[in-house]
C-alpha cells in the first residue's frame, strides 16, 4: 500500500491527492466565499436558541467594556452617601453599595477590566502555547519528547497554585493577574496544538504539499496551521470563560486590581461584609460572571462541534 502512495502508480490514490490539493487553488476561492456566506446566513436561522443567547450575552458585555456610558448614567467610582445600601429599584437597577455607588454601573464599568484581563490571559496562553505545540509537533522526536514532558509536569501543578506562584514573583495587579492566569493555560494550548499538528501532518494533502515541493515552513504555515487552528480556537473560547473565572477568583482573594476598581471578583469580595443587609451586592456580579462563563463555554462547544 505505502509504496503505491508515493509513486502515484495507483490511479485512485493519485486522484484523491490531486483533489485535496485542488482545494487550495486560488480560482476556487471566490466561489467558495459566496457559498460560505449563503450557507452561514441560512444556518444562522437554524442556530439553537442557547447559542444565539450566548453570543448576545458576549456582545452586550463587550459593548459594556467599550461604551459603558451608553448603558448607565451613574459614576462607578463616586457615590452619594445618603443613598447607601439601597435595594434594587427602578432608580438603581441592582441597588447601591455601602458608599452609595450604583452596583449596575460598577458591573458595567467593571466589564472592561475583566474582559481585557481575560483577553490578555487567553492571548498569552494561545500564542505561546500554540507556538510551543507547533514547534514540538514538527521538530524532531527528542525535542518533542522534551517539550511534552515539560508540559506534563506543568499540568501536574494545579493552575491556581501556578498562578499564585507567578503572582508572588510579579506582584499584585490587573496585568500581573492576567499574565498569571494566561501562563497557567500555556500547557493545555501546547498539548492540544501539538496533537492537532500530528493529526494534520498525517493527512494526504499535507503529504501532497510536501510532494509538490513545499518547504517545511511553507507547508506548516499554509496547510498545517490553518487546519489545526479550528480546535485551538474552540479551546481559546473555553479558556476565555475559565480566565474570567480565574481572574475573578484572584480579584476576590485581593491579588488583582486595587480596591476602588470595579473588577467583578472584587465587587463580590466587597459585598461580603454586608451579607445580612444587602444580598444584591454579591448576588448581582456573581450572576454576571456565571452568564459570561456559560456563554463562552457554549460558544466553545459549538465551535468544536462544527469541526467534527
Amino acid at each position, binding site marked *: 500500500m505505502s509504496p503505491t502512495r508515493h509513486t502515484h502508480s495507483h490511479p485512485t490514490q493519485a486522484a484523491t491527492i490531486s483533489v485535496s490539493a485542488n482545494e487550495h487553488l486560488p480560482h476556487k476561492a471566490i466561489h467558495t466565499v459566496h457559498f460560505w456566506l449563503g450557507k452561514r446566513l441560512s444556518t444562522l436561522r437554524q442556530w439553537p436558541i442557547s447559542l444565539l443567547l450566548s453570543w448576545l450575552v458576549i456582545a452586550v458585555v463587550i459593548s459594556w467594556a467599550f461604551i459603558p456610558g451608553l448603558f448607565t448614567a451613574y459614576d462607578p467610582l463616586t457615590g452619594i452617601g445618603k443613598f447607601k445600601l439601597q435595594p434594587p429599584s427602578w432608580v438603581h437597577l441592582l441597588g447601591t453599595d455601602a458608599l452609595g455607588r450604583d452596583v449596575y454601573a460598577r458591573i458595567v464599568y467593571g466589564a472592561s477590566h475583566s474582559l481585557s484581563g481575560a483577553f490578555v490571559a487567553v492571548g498569552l496562553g494561545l500564542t505561546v502555547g500554540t507556538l510551543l505545540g507547533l514547534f514540538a509537533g514538527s521538530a524532531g522526536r527528542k525535542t518533542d519528547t522534551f517539550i511534552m*514532558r*515539560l508540559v*506534563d*509536569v*506543568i499540568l*501536574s*501543578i*494545579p*493552575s*491556581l*497554585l*501556578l498562578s*499564585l*506562584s*507567578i*503572582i*508572588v*514573583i510579579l506582584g499584585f495587579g490587573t496585568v500581573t493577574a492576567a499574565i498569571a492566569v494566561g501562563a497557567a493555560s500555556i500547557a493545555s494550548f501546547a498539548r492540544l496544538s501539538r496533537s492537532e499538528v500530528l493529526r494534520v501532518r498525517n493527512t494526504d494533502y499535507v503529504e501532497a504539499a510536501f510532494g509538490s515541493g513545499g518547504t517545511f515552513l511553507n507547508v506548516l504555515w499554509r496547510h498545517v496551521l490553518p487546519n489545526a487552528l479550528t480546535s485551538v480556537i474552540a479551546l481559546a473560547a473555553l479558556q476565555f*470563560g475559565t480566565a474570567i*473565572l480565574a481572574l*475573578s*477568583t484572584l480579584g*476576590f*482573594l*485581593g*491579588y488583582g486590581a486595587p480596591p476602588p476598581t470595579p473588577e467583578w*471578583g472584587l465587587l*463580590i*469580595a466587597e*459585598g*461580603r461584609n454586608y*451579607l*445580612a443587609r444587602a*444580598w444584591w451586592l*454579591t*448576588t448581582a456580579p*456573581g450572576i454576571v*460572571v*456565571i452568564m459570561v*462563563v*456559560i456563554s463562552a*463555554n*457554549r460558544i466553545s462547544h459549538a465551535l468544536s462541534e462544527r469541526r467534527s
Partner: protein
Amino acid sequence: MSKHLISHLFQSVLTLWAAFTIAFVLLQALPGDAVLIKFLASDFGLTPEQITELQQTYGVNLPLWQKYFHELGAIFTGNLGFSVQAGLPVSQVIATNLPPTLLLASLGFTAAIVLALSVAFLSAFTCFSWLRQALHALPSLFVSVPVFWLGIVLIQIVSFQLGLIPVINPGHWEGLILPTIALAIPISAPIAQILIRNIEATLLLPHVAVARAKGASHVWVLWHHVARNAVLPTLTMAGLLFGELLAGAVVTETVFGLSGLGSLTQQAVNNQDTAVLKAIVIISAAIFITINLIVDLLYPILDPRLRVAQEARP
C-alpha cells in the same frame, strides 16, 4: 507487569523531580526575599550585621546552584525549608494544616461524586425529556459558578435567610456542611459531563441491544450492562480533580474562615513566604503524580479489556 510497574515508577519520580525544579526556578526568581522583607522593617531595629547573619542562617546568600542541590537533598530528609512568616519549619506548618484540608477535600470529593452520579443516572432513568434536558444542562451551569461566590450565597441563604447554621462558631461538623457543598458543586460538573456522555455511548453498544432483545428492563440494563462501563473511565480524571479540589480549598477556606492548606497558601502569597508556597506546589504535584500512578496501575486490573490489550502488545 513488574517491568511496567518499574517504568511507571521511574517516570513518576522523574516528573516529580522536574516539578521541584520548576517550582525552584519559578520561586527563586523573586527579587526581594522574604527574610529581608520581614527583618528590614524598621520596627525590628536590627543592625546591618545582624541582618547579614540572619541571611546566612537562612542560606539566602548561597549561589543558586548550591541552593538547588541543598534543597533537593533536604527534601529526602523531610526538610522543606523554614517559614519566615510563621517562624517554624515548613514541614511543621504543613503538618498542622494538611489534615483539615484533606478532610474538607475528601468530603467535597465524596459529595461531588454522589451529585454527579445522581445527575447522570437520573437523566438516564427519567422518561420525561424536559427533565433530561434540564439535567444535561446542569453540569455546564455548575462548572461556570465561581466557588467563592457559591460559598457566599450559601452563607447568605442558609445562615442569614433561613438561620439554619450559625455563622459564628458553628460546631465542627456543622461548620463543614456549607464548605463541602460549595466545593462539591463545581467539581461534580466534569464528572457528571463524562458520565452522561459515557452512559449515552454505552447504551448504543451491541451488548445492550442484545440484553434488551432478551427482555431486560431499562433499569436492569443500566445497572448490569451500562454502569460499570460508564463509571470506569471517570477514574482517569481523579488526578485532575485533585488539583481542582485543592484550588477550591484555597477559596472555600478563605470564604468560610477555616484553617488549612488553602488559607496557608493565601497567607504565603500575601507575605511572599516562598518556602511555604514552594512546599505546597511540590506536595500538590506529588499527590497528583501519585494519584495518576495509582490510577494507571489500577485501571488494567479493573478493566479486563485493557488487560487483554496490554498483554497482546508485543
